[in-house]
């Protein structure tokens, strides 16, 4: 391997960090300079993710030893299929959310671009790291940046939602440390591959400790993923923050889902001896209840962004139900559904912003308002985004749910999963149709002066929807990649060998 490609796995982590520091140093530079640095750094993540995707697609698991210390003594970054997949989704959502932010949201407060880059630094690091404590550190980085972004622009409701978000995440971090400490105390290692080896050999007297730590970790990840009953922080936080931040946060719940998938397929998977399939009894019922509760929240929502936030909770339920099937088809369905739901959620959050602004003082509350200027283009995009969110053909949500339903055919959970997914799908269609007709059709004339949206207001959302369309057109290769990823995840021995270099 030559110089640059050898260092490929660290670049998506280093680039946003360096860009963030440079932006901090240039905080009094002209806005155009800050914009171009931030945009260039974010856009460069797309080719980097593509390069990693190309490298990982043949099954290679690139292991990057930081400081060239061998695992398990040093910290490693591992770029396998799953990590590259998550990096790709992050890069795309981040790029379009930033394009939306450039039209004005970024100057409502200070240091938007610095925090944005540090958030990407945390996200990319969390997806790449192969070390449990390092995962905690990257969680903290992305959380600290997200606290700043969430509060960006200020305001009563934002501060109140932010306070709840910060406090609950601090408690979550403490629990994460307790779990990590217990695992270290029992096994003497924090490298995930080494943990997988050591946990499989857990002696009976330590079994209860390891199970407690494993389930504590699950609690932390479930908190990040907003799994019921730990989802209550999400709707307020997402509904009250600014549009580009909400769109970027679409990937934040997926960090929790990713960690559940990574940790429980690697460390507590079918090969893990006494602690095998630790989550088998927990994940599926919780995921299905989350799906139903999220959809009920969406029905009861009184404003568009609150409704979307509850739809995020519902989509987490669908995603984790797919992972809980614990079969190649199930995980593949989840991995196809994951970028779809991230893109669709981000698109509809970005759309809610021009819709709210075009309605004047009613903002995005569900009450009849004046006919909004530019209703045709906004309404058309809302229609497309709603189809994607609700999972109707021809957009990618339908394919994702179809793959999930087909994967569940053999599962003992089939009846529950089919009824939950189909019923909430129907409710989702009705809810979104009701919101759409209320926002766009039930209008009255007004003397209020309303400003029409500019093209820059809806173009990023339209771009995200086009990407979703791309996921349908190239559904073959995308789902093949997802299936290959799922196969790789369910055979953790290859990951362990790649990291530990075949040593026991």
């Amino acid at each position, binding site marked *: 391997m030559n110089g640059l490609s050898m260092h490929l796995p660290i670049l998506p982590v280093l680039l946003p960090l360096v860009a963030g520091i440079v932006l901090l140093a240039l905080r009094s530079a002209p806005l155009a300079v800050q914009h171009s640095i931030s945009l260039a750094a974010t856009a460069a993540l797309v080719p980097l993710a593509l390069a990693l995707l190309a490298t990982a697609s043949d099954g290679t698991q690139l292991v990057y030893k930081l400081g060239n210390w061998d695992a398990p003594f040093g910290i490693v970054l591992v770029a396998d299929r799953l990590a590259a997949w998550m990096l790709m989704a992050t890069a795309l959502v981040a790029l379009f959310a930033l394009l939306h932010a450039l039209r004005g949201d970024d100057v409502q407060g200070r240091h938007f671009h610095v925090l944005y880059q540090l958030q990407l630094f945390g996200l990319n690091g969390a997806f790449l790291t192969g070390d449990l*404590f390092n995962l905690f550190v990257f969680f903290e980085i992305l959380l600290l940046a997200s606290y700043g972004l969430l509060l960006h622009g200020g305001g009563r409701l934002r501060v*109140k939602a932010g306070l709840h978000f910060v406090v609950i995440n601090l408690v979550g*971090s403490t629990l994460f440390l*307790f779990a990590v*400490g217990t695992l270290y105390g029992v096994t*003497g290692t*924090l490298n995930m591959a080494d943990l997988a080896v050591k946990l499989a050999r857990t002696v009976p007297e330590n079994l209860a400790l390891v199970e407690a730590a494993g389930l504590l970790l699950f609690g932390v990840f479930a908190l990040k993923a907003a799994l019921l009953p730990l989802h209550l922080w999400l709707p307020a936080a997402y509904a009250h923050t600014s549009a580009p931040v909400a769109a970027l946060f679409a990937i934040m719940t997926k960090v929790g889902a990713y960690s559940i998938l990574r940790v429980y397929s690697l460390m507590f998977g079918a090969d893990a001896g006494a602690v095998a399939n630790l989550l088998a009894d927990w994940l599926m019922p919780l995921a299905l209840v989350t799906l139903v509760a999220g959809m009920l929240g969406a029905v009861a929502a009184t404003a568009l962004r609150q409704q979307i936030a509850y739809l995020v909770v519902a989509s987490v339920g669908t995603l984790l139900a797919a992972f809980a099937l614990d079969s190649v088809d199930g995980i593949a369905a989840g991995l196809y559904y994951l970028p779809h739901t991230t893109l669709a959620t981000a698109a509809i959050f970005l759309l809610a912003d021009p819709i709210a602004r075009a309605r004047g003082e009613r903002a995005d509350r569900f009450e009849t308002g004046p006919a909004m200027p530019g209703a045709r283009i906004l309404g058309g995009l809302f229609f497309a985004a709603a189809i994607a969110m609700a999972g109707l053909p021809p957009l990618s949500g339908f394919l994702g749910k179809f793959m999930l339903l087909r994967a569940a055919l053999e599962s003992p959970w089939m009846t529950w999963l089919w009824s939950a997914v189909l019923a909430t799908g129907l409710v989702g269609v009705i809810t979104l149709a009701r919101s759409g007709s209320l926002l766009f059709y039930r209008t009255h004339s007004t003397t209020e002066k309303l400003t029409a949206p500019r093209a820059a207001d809806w173009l990023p959302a339209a771009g995200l929807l086009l990407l979703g369309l791309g996921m349908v057109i190239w559904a073959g290769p995308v789902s093949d990649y997802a299936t290959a990823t799922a196969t790789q995840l369910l055979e953790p021995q290859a990951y362990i060998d790649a990291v530990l270099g075949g040593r026991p």
Partner: protein
Amino acid sequence: MEALIAVVIGVLTASGVFLALRGQTFPVVLGLTFLSYAVNLFLFVMGRLAIGVPPVISDAAAYTDPLPQALVLTAIVISFGMTAFVIVLALKARAELGNDHVDGTHSEEDTAR
């Protein structure tokens, strides 16, 4: 000594949980601080307790595990930063919402006390 440390961690955690569940931001911040003290101590103890041995592998036979000490340093720095942040946020919430209740609204029950 193990029993003493275990009791200390337990008391710190219990106080932390109790305070974090209070309705005003100041006790909540204190509770989070107690929780982070408890977890830092817990992480440190995970390397087992030893007296008077260096955290380096040397010619002497006995040594104590240096990794938890490194971990706990990282955790202390992070929790220190987080505490600073949450204090500033609590002050901002006090200024924006006009009171120090975590929900921004004092119920009559609270004011009576």
